[in-house]
């Protein structure tokens, strides 16, 4: 948030005559000369707002700044207030969820997104499904294609809502309330699925490292399949819809089973609990398979009304 202030300072030095005080706070005044001054303003981050004025220009522009001490004082007060507000908001949010963990899920790049989308649509040739670690912390999605991320589910969710609006518009059933209804329905189904997964993982005391965000990510991957299904249904009619539904269901089931198998089912070589765990691997397998089977059902439930 310091950049507009620097732009404002630069513009104030150049021409005191042209813009009035409150006018160009957000827009740099590039009408006069010397854009180099602008660059200098950007590269010196605003530790002391009063001191940078001397660094920016030789000596001639210093007089222009101090002609309006009230504006300076107000600007500094405003910036300090904004910083305080920002700190308070960060503190409050970090009480509920750790922002660093959330940032981990959005550290993606283009190559990862493309590879992940291909794996979601065609997972049968992917060999290695292990999530790689680096000294006990999982690698970011940029470095490991198996890591779950939240970028693809978020974008796919938004795209699905837009596509649903478009599909309903094609069938002349569109109204703005329907869009909100579709969005909240899909959101509610995600919440239900994540809660059921969390409950079943807790009841069976599966000590996996699946956090809530991981589960949200894995249950959000089905939106990619849904988008593909709806597109095929719109382009190729009812037959295309069912073919695409079958394809994306199988791909998604395979993907979910292979991804969650690593995390939920115990690796048989680690601990040797013989007696108590005879029922456990079966139940864990049931959870994985039930999650996988749930995906086509919900895909059909959420998209069938769009392609009639």
């Amino acid at each position, binding site marked *: 948030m310091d950049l507009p202030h620097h732009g404002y300072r630069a513009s104030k030095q150049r021409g005191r005559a042209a813009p009035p005080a409150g006018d160009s706070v957000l827009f740099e005044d590039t009408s006069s000369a010397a854009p180099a001054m602008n660059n200098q303003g950007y590269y010196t981050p605003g530790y002391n707002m009063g001191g940078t004025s001397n660094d920016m220009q030789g000596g001639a522009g210093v007089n222009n700044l101090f002609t309006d001490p009230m504006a300076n004082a107000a600007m500094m007060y405003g910036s300090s207030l904004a910083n305080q507000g920002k700190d308070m908001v960060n503190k409050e949010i970090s009480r509920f969820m750790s922002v660093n963990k959330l940032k981990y899920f959005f550290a993606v790049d283009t190559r990862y997104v493309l590879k992940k989308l291909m794996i979601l649509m065609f997972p049968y040739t992917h060999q290695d499904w292990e999530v790689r670690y680096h000294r006990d912390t999982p690698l970011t999605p940029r470095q490991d294609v198996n890591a779950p991320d939240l970028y693809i589910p978020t974008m796919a969710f938004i795209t699905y809502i837009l596509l649903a609006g478009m599909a309903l518009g094609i069938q002349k059933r569109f109204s703005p309330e329907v869009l909100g209804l579709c969005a909240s*329905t899909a*959101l*509610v*189904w995600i919440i*239900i699925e994540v809660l059921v997964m969390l409950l079943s993982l*807790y*009841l069976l005391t599966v000590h996996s490292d699946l956090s809530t965000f991981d589960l949200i990510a894995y249950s959000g991957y089905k939106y990619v399949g849904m988008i593909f299904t709806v597109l095929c249904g719109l382009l190729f009619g009812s037959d295309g819809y069912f073919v695409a539904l079958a394809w994306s269901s199988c791909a998604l089931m395979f993907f979910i089973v292979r991804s969650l198998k690593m995390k939920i089912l115990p690796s048989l070589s680690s601990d040797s609990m013989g007696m108590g765990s005879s029922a456990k691997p079966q139940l864990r397998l049931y959870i994985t398979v039930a999650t996988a089977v749930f995906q086509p059902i919900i895909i059909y439930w959420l998209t069938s*009304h769009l392609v009639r």
Partner: protein
Amino acid sequence: RRLRTCWDNMAFTLYSLIQAAILCVNAVAVLHEERFLTKIGWGVDQSVGGFGDEPGIKVQLMNLVRSVRTVMRVPLIAVNSVCIVLLLLFG
């Protein structure tokens, strides 16, 4: 027409989710400890099982019920009062 009613039946809103959550938590909160749970063998004094590292499903469920009842007792009073007032006012 038929498609429209089909869509309306399945449309969830966040409000209906909140309603369902409140009803479920109320249902868990009214399970009385001595009158009901011990009678069916779900009391907390019957959950001290083996000292293995993996408690079973029933023990986990009993612990969950007990902790939900302990934690949500006071907030449920507030939430239910608010719901009653709102439903009386707005139907």
